[in-house]
């Protein structure tokens, strides 16, 4: 009983209601319905590794236009300026708004980058069947899963400013294409972390400790 994983006992845990079901006849890649809630039941998330890789790849490509293209155009006092995420942060620093600059830097630049790097690291470590520090890697996954949503802040700031500053020639804020790329990076990396199955970390750990 000690240190036995559910899959070794032919038990599949329902993602929705946590009910364990005996699934002896269930080949690893197929799924059936949970007897309690009717949700699809599988031992591991289907095609977890290839699906996560595909999403990470897409996010990494979109990350480039998201940072190069301007996300917003501000018209104010007769002048008109387009800001990328980075130039927006620099502007905030010049005006002495350090706290806001820090929030946007962490949420818009640091988190998406660390998220992509962490998931690539987790994917590779699972694929080479590493048995290195599974507990720490699980912790890393939980952090990635938890903080990813916070990258949405910049999108909301743009949305709020666009709604609020619509005063023609006096002051106008308009969204620009970079914001669409940035939003897609956030959404795709969220799907990537959802499609990664942290139990794979422990599968290779168990295999190598047998």
């Amino acid at each position, binding site marked *: 009983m000690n*240190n*036995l*994983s*559910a*899959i070794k*006992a032919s*038990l599949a*845990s329902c*993602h*929705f*209601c*946590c*009910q*364990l*079901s*005996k699934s002896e006849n269930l080949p690893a890649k197929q799924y059936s319905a949970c007897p*309690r*809630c*009717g949700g699809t039941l599988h031992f591991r998330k289907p095609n977890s590794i290839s699906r996560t890789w595909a999403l990470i790849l897409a996010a990494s490509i979109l990350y480039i236009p998201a940072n190069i293209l301007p996300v917003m155009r501000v018209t*104010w006092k007769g002048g008109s300026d387009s800001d990328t995420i980075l130039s927006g942060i620099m502007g*905030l620093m010049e005006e002495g*708004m350090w*706290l*806001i600059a820090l929030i*946007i830097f962490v949420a818009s630049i640091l988190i998406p980058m660390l998220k992509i790097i962490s998931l690539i690291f987790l994917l590779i470590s699972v694929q080479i069947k590493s048995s290195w520090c*599974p*507990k720490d890697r*699980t*912790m890393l*996954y939980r952090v990635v899963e938890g903080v990813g949503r*916070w990258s*949405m*802040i*910049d*999108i*909301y*700031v743009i*949305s*709020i*400013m*666009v*709604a*609020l*500053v*619509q*005063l023609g020639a*006096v*002051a106008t804020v*308009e*969204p620009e294409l970079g*914001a669409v790329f940035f*939003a*897609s990076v956030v959404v795709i990396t*969220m799907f990537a972390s*959802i499609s990664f199955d*942290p*139990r794979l*970390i*422990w*599968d290779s750990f168990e295999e190598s400790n047998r």
Partner: protein
Amino acid sequence: MTESLIACDYCDLLQKIPSLEPNQTAKCARCGSILYRSKKDSLNRTLSFTLAGLIFFILANSFPLISLDIQGRTQTSRLITGCVDLYRHGMLSLAALVFATSILMPFLKFIGTAYIFMPLKFSRLTWKTKPIFKILKTIHPWGMIEIYLLGIFVAYVKLSDMATINIGIAAYAFIASILFMVAADASWDPYETWNKLEKNHE
């Protein structure tokens, strides 16, 4: 045998469901993730927090959120205004994303939770409770009103040297609805809910 066992969501370790005092948390013996939290008076608290949150969320959507004064001109904005204006600028996908994560998903979460818990409270059978439970679990990470609130704060500071910003009553209702949503999440005991659901359906 399977009734008394639980598998960790993060490492798949099979372990006994611990018997906990109310408001205690059990962690996985192998990876340290949260395995199970027992909640005091879960049903009543989750239901009341959800209903309160729903009322405040409706209020937050019904009144002006923020207004801005520049050179004698005033512009008022509601929660939905951002989505409408993004759409007007031709950014349909962005508008849809902001609408889904800041209005639709939180609203579905409040409604869905209330729909499950109301009949449970009165021990009635309900229609399609289980699919709704699954939908709630799926949309959970996509409701982002607490992040939106930080967005309001950032926009407020950014605009404050350009114009005078006034916080409307909807903003306070919005904060209240976030606090109630967090409280409802924290007092929800999914095990108790499933036990009750199963009992009702027998």
